[in-house]
């Protein structure tokens, strides 16, 4: 092996060992994290967010099999884009926050999609219904903190979110795009 090939190999080995250096993220910095969504009303994308949620996480990007995560979302903290919509979506036909104050996501498995990309599969529980969801996400690490960011489509009618007249998907689409950005640290 020529000397330059050897040094290249050495460099890449160092590189690999650096990138796989064990970092286990187990804290979520809620202040900097965001949980938002985009619904489509008459084909108009309308943004909203949940202001209050908590998260538990144990994630080592080098050992995704061992990952665990749980997200609890306070549904009454919703901002659906306007005051009128906020009142509406808390009501019985939508989230029914009186009876079901929180939504919960529990991760079941995480797989690596190469470099900084991953996919989580888990169970979403809203309004007494539990359905499987999967979401791709990226993890960008700087020092001891990481930014975990992804999105996935959630079908609202699987959870009876928007019953009666509101189940008309021509007005409010079934698919709601959920976006999450969790700032995590060791």
């Amino acid at each position, binding site marked *: 092996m020529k000397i330059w090939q050897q040094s290249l190999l050495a460099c890449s080995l160092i590189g690999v060992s650096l990138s796989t250096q064990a970092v286990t993220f187990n804290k979520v910095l809620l202040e900097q994290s965001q949980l938002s969504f985009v619904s489509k009303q*008459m084909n108009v994308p309308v943004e909203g967010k949940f202001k209050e949620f908590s998260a538990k996480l144990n994630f080592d990007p080098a050992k995704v099999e061992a990952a665990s995560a749980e997200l609890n979302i306070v549904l009454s903290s919703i901002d659906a884009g306007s005051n009128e919509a906020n009142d509406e979506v808390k009501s019985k036909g939508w989230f029914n926050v009186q009876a079901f104050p929180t939504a919960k996501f529990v991760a079941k498995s995480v797989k690596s999609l190469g470099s900084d990309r991953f996919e989580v599969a888990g169970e979403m529980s809203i309004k007494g219904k539990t359905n499987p969801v999967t979401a791709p996400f990226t993890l960008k690490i700087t020092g001891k903190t990481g930014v975990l960011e992804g999105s996935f489509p959630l079908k609202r009618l699987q959870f009876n979110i928007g019953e009666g007249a509101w189940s008309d998907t021509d*007005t409010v689409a079934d698919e709601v795009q959920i976006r999450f950005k969790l700032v995590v640290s060791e």
Partner: protein
Amino acid sequence: MSQSYTRTAIALHWVIALGMLIAIALGFYMTNLSLSPFKLKLFSWHKWLGVTIFLLASLRLVWRLTHPAPALPDTMDNWEKQIAHAVHVALYVLMFSIPLSGWLMSSAAGFPVVFLGLIPLPDLLAKNKELAAMLKQVHFLLNMSLLALVGLHVGAALKHHFVLKDNVMAQMLPWLGRGKSK
């Protein structure tokens, strides 16, 4: 100066007049409804109609600038002609500023406008609730001005037709049969 309006000018006048009337009725009706899928539909239809009026008004302005309107009769005083002209200019301004204020309000409220549910229009403003509330007032007041001016405009037209018995109103309503006779 030509003797009467072109057919295109007449068609644009009445289509826009009807469109604005429907937009106003829809605007007042929809804002008083409680939230429902029907209300969301009406809001969208109102916006689509408003954008359509804006497009037709653009066409109309170009047409007006390239096809002079018939002269007002010499039986009118100069100041009367000036007021008529000023009202017409103001009506043109409202044909643009009303839909524009609606679009701005919608942008500021965080609801992008998607024309006919197909064509997303650019957001002219970032989301800002206070600004949206202010623009709602602007949209409302411009509509009130429109109603007042349309009242004046229609009243004047009727006076020309029934009191002065000239051909001013008939120029926009040729089937009244007084179009070119005087």
